[in-house]
């Protein structure tokens, strides 16, 4: 298979799709505020339930339960690696940064220094039908953070 497809499904993506960092919802131990969000892509049935815990404005835990394609599941995994331990505003900035790359149709490069393994998903932006798969966990995190602040 040619480079295009390997660019989309980089080994790092396939690895995350299998290992799934953060998979398995964690019960909240009581410290800080917890928020949860459920997201569904009605086109393909991909879904995720994501839980986030904020302690003093720091995202201390992300856990999730999901079913879906390699893009959506790996995206949830790289997101977990990227954001745990960051403060809330920083997390929101990262979500915005990722969204900008995803919506760019390949025009905005992903900065690996900023996005970590999530930069490997940059190839998705050339496939508009798959952007929603990649964004699923990130939208869930945004909503979970909003819920945690209420």
């Amino acid at each position, binding site marked *: 298979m*040619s480079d295009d497809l390997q660019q989309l*499904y980089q080994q790092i993506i396939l690895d995350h799709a299998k290992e799934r960092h953060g998979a398995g919802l964690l019960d909240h131990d009581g410290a800080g505020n917890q928020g949860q969000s459920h997201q569904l892509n009605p*086109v*393909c*049935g*991909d879904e995720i339930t994501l839980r986030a815990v904020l302690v003093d404005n720091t995202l201390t835990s992300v856990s999730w339960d999901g079913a*879906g*394609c*390699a893009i959506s599941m790996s995206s949830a995994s790289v997101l977990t690696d990227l954001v745990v331990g960051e403060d809330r505003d920083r997390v929101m900035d990262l979500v915005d940064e990722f969204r900008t790359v995803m919506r760019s149709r390949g025009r905005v490069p992903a900065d690996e220094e900023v996005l970590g393994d999530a930069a490997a998903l940059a190839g998705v932006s050339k496939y508009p039908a*798959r952007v929603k798969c990649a964004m699923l966990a990130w939208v869930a995190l945004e909503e979970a953070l909003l819920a945690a602040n209420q």
Partner: protein
Amino acid sequence: MSIPSAPHHPLSNTEVQRIRNDFPILDTEVNSRPLIYLDSGATSQNPLSVLEAEQEFYEQRNSAVHRGAHTLAVEATDAYEAARETIAAFVGAAVDEIVWTSNATEALNLVAYSFSNASVGRGGPAAERFVLGPDDEIVVTEMEHHANLIPWQELAARTGATLRWIPVDDDGALRLEDAAAIIGPATRVVAFTHASNVLGTINPVAELVAMARQHGALTVLDACQSVPHLPVDVHALGVDFMAFSGHKMLGPTGIGALYGSAELLNAMPPFLTGGSMITTVTMERAEYLEAPARFEAGTQRISQAIALAAAANYLTETGMHRVQDWEETLGRQLVEGLSQLPGIRVLGPAAGTERIGLAAFDVEGVHAHDVGQYLDHAGIAVRVGHHCAQPLHRRLGLTATTRASTYLYNTSDEVDAFLAAVANVRPFFGVK
């Protein structure tokens, strides 16, 4: 009107190559590879004769039908009504038994809303057989496309009737023994698909119609996957209503049809109301035309109807028996080929059972979206997802599958190329 006649010999790859010349889009390249279009179950491609019929209408006859006395209006009306005759003949119906709709979804909603309108007293005593209430039951099947499920859910919710369904077994076949217990004296409507858009199975229409008739229930057939792919004689099937879409049978989008016996259609209160479906209108009320006009409010889908007739003629000239046989060959090749691949589960009955030329399958360890992406990269267009049949997928323990669906313009070489590509999916994604 001359009725086209088809040759008798079976279709062959050589003849299909000639057929392909009539479909300009099949020369397209996708991702630098020749397009292999295996998504006709979702929408089919159009032969030149269909494209030309639509263009010719706009270039030479474009005008509103059934109004105006000028020459173009007369010609447009003639062509539009001739198209209805063609489609009626194509499915073995009388011309006044075919109502144009936007698609099968609208046709099914038309029937459901007519029941609904009758249930609030519209249509008077003539419409009594369409009146539903809390003691009544609507029966569908677990394999329905959402288009033949949700309109009935909504009708049940509006009227207080109960929605029941005939379950499928682990192979996706209808459990007829259960059907006999579900269809009973309270049943007023039995709505079911002729051929499953996911499983490819052809349902036992005669048995279901007999069960419904025994209890005086009306039958509604979703023929979206049968009318394009096999010879259908609606009177022989014995159903009361039948819906199908034009874009799945080589026609344009935006046109479909509802079959109903003239007697039933004329007793049903209208669904959409407005211009061209009335006799006398006062400020207080209106009288309605007979069917089919009473169900065709507003300016109609004229070019689409004319183009759909060209599609039906194309199919008739090719020969629906030959189309059916060719797709059966391709379908067998699909199911047998997929069944031999490791980690592939084909939905529906095993190879050897009668089915239309499609196969939906699950690739163990690889999500359908990823399968579709891989195949698209090889120039192969398939459908991925739940194919608008979420309950059926849930019943089979799946959320999404990949579906390859053939038509008269597909070759066995294309099916081979598809099978070779599917064989590479699991290795590509590192699934052992």
